């Protein structure tokens, strides 16, 4: 154990190392650590904020969804109403058209019947004249006995 100049050398070396450490090592590392600490804290706060925002957004989305559903059901109800209206209208139209057609057909039938009756009547008149002329064995002048014939036709 001999103390010599190394003592001073070591003291000076030590103080230089401490000075260097204090100047160039400690501050940047501490600054980085502080900054990271802040970053992490900021990140956590941001995450919390994000979570809150997400919650709000979820709530808003649920509200929107609910609204949309309500609207949709309303639209469906309206559409159904409209559809039944259209169906009713169509039914009414169809019924009217059918009635119209039926009426037209009936009048046509009536006309046909009348026409047939007329024809029949004329034919019967012809037959009657022929029959009568046969009975009388003489020719009946159609033009001179027209009024009798007409009376006959009207009676038939």
């Amino acid at each position, binding site marked *: 154990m001999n103390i*010599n100049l*190394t003592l001073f050398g*070591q003291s000076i*070396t030590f103080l230089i*190392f401490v000075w*260097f*450490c*204090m100047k160039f090592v400690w501050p*940047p590392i501490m600054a980085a650590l502080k900054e*990271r600490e802040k970053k992490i804290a900021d990140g956590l706060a941001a995450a919390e904020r994000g979570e809150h925002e997400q919650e709000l957004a979820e709530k808003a989305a649920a509200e929107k969804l609910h609204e949309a559903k309500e609207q949709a059901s309303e639209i469906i109800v309206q559409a159904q109403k409209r559809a039944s209206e259209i169906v009713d209208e169509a039914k009414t139209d169809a019924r009217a058209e059918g009635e119209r057609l039926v009426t037209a057909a009936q009048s046509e039938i009536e006309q046909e019947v009348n026409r047939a009756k007329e024809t029949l009547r004329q034919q019967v008149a012809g037959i009657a004249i022929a029959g009568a002329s046969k009975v009388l064995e003489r020719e009946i002048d159609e033009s001179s006995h027209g009024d009798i014939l007409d009376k006959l036709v009207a009676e038939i």
Partner: protein
Amino acid sequence: MSSEALTSAQYIKHHLTNWTYGRFDDGNWGFAKDAEEIKEMGFMSINVDTTFWSIFLGVFFLYFFHKAAKKAEAGVPGKLQNFVEWIVEFIDSSVKGSFSAKNALVAPLSLTIFVWVFLMNFMDLVPVDWLPLLAGWVGETFFGADPHHVFFKVVPTTDPNATFGMAFSVFFLVLFYSIKIKGIGGFAGELTLQPFQSKNKLVMLLFIPINFLLEFVSLIAKPISLALRLYGNMYAGEMIFILIAMMFSASIGMGIFGGFLQLGWAIFHILIVTLQAFIFMTLTIVYLEMAHHEH
């Protein structure tokens, strides 16, 4: 065992002698060849091995920490940065735990002490013969020196010069801050006006020298205990490594036994190495804390 030509006593002595450069009695400077020449040099000499290893390890420490500090940023840290930050945070929490005043010096000081002392202590775990043998070989081959005269002590903290050098620097800081914070009067008062106090002026006057004696001793004890604790622990550890190393030359059985002993002691020594570095740092913080506060 470095050489068959050495007796055990010589072997131990060889291991415990520093590589010394100094002034001979005739006024010339040179390397000492043996203990007598070292004695002849006295105070005007330098332990080259201690100085080299301490500066080497200090530069090693600062190089890597500075490298990490330059690249330090708040993003995801790399491996080196992570390691450095781990140590820095550990030191920072230690300092915050026992130092309450504001002083930008204390934390870097503690970091330097802890890592530097740890690295110097750690040299103890390098097998005791490796580096001295290498030094002896280099000395013999390149400088033509007798390997028995090439001394190489690789653990700077087993040299009291290193530990006292640090302890006195710390003591200097303690005195500096005591006077800076409390003023010369306050500091002198702290040394003389306690622990014994009296309302009677005359009695108080009598107490002052007694108080001064007590306080001065406790003040002086700080650096001395700081230095001797580290030196004693490391010196003893080194000594045991040397004694274990001597077993290797005894017989094969003793050698194998010695191998286990060395392994066990080295593992245990890892604890001592770290613990002593931590104690030196913590006491430094505590002394500086005391310098910053009246008590």
